[in-house]
């Protein structure tokens, strides 16, 4: 397997999944956002959003806080330091892949 394709398979699949990439991108733009905002922004169903956030939390990229505002339960998500690093590294990896693809020579 030539190098660019090997690099491509090494892409962080937790980050790369479109819904999770959208969530991480949004969370990278703020300190925290609540469940309702993330659901509205991505158009995900409650179940799907919850599943993706759980996966990101399991990977240590996102921290989920559940608390009450008055009597109303509220769930907020924020990127961890690892999450911020992960999204930055993801785009650097994609940059490298793009540059490598320009240098890719056909097999002889």
């Amino acid at each position, binding site marked *: 397997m030539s190098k660019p394709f090997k690099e491509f398979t090494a892409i962080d699949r937790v980050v790369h*999944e*479109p*819904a999770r*990439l*959208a969530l991480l*991108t*949004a*969370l*990278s*733009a*703020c*300190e*925290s*956002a*609540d*469940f*309702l*905002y*993330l*659901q*509205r*922004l*991505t*158009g*995900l*169903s409650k179940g*799907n959003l919850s*599943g*993706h956030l*759980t*996966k990101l939390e399991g990977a240590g990229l996102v921290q989920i806080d559940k608390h009450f505002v008055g009597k109303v339960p*509220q769930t*907020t998500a924020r990127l961890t330091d690892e999450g911020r690093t992960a999204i930055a590294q993801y*785009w650097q990896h*994609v*940059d490298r892949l*793009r*540059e490598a693809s320009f240098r890719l020579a056909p097999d002889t």
Partner: protein
Amino acid sequence: MTVQPSPDLRRLHAITANYFFWQGLRWVPPGAALILFVWSTMPSFPLPAAWRDATPWFALTLGLVASWLIGKYYAHTYGYVRSLPGMHARRNAVKWSVVYPMIALALMVDGLLKPSIIVSGLVFAVSIEAYRRSTGGGRRHYVLASVLFAAATFAPALGLVQPGRDVLALVLGSLGGVYMIGGVFDHLELRRVLQARGDYDHVETV
């Protein structure tokens, strides 16, 4: 060459980073307050003199309270975002050290020196476009507002408005209109973005 995130992702990032400014209905009450203030300085204002003096303060207070309440609506309906501390430090520094002083100076020039062009028209044209770009882009209606402010610059020279007090009333009243109309269009654009249905909600292993 650096890979740019897709337009969708850029938009998600920009709107989230500037969520407060995209909550357009917040700007409607302050816009109405500004128009009411301008009207209170005119002979056509229907209330007695004692009410005239109180009107700007009443309008400002009402505008701010209404804006705050509308913020509650957005949090309840579209969700809540907490900004990153210091994220917009540079923008705020430019706003307070350059933009606002320029606006104040331009209004003083228009009011006191009464030039044959509306200096504040040009300043507002530039400021509105700078505002649009620095708060997440999109919202093309502000480009139109900028063009109209720039075009109005020559209104005194064309005899359409008297230099001095009338120019200030025109500029500030128009700004109030931009707040109100622009705010409604901001809200409509935000609503289109935050009503995304199924963009990422496909069958996918979680």
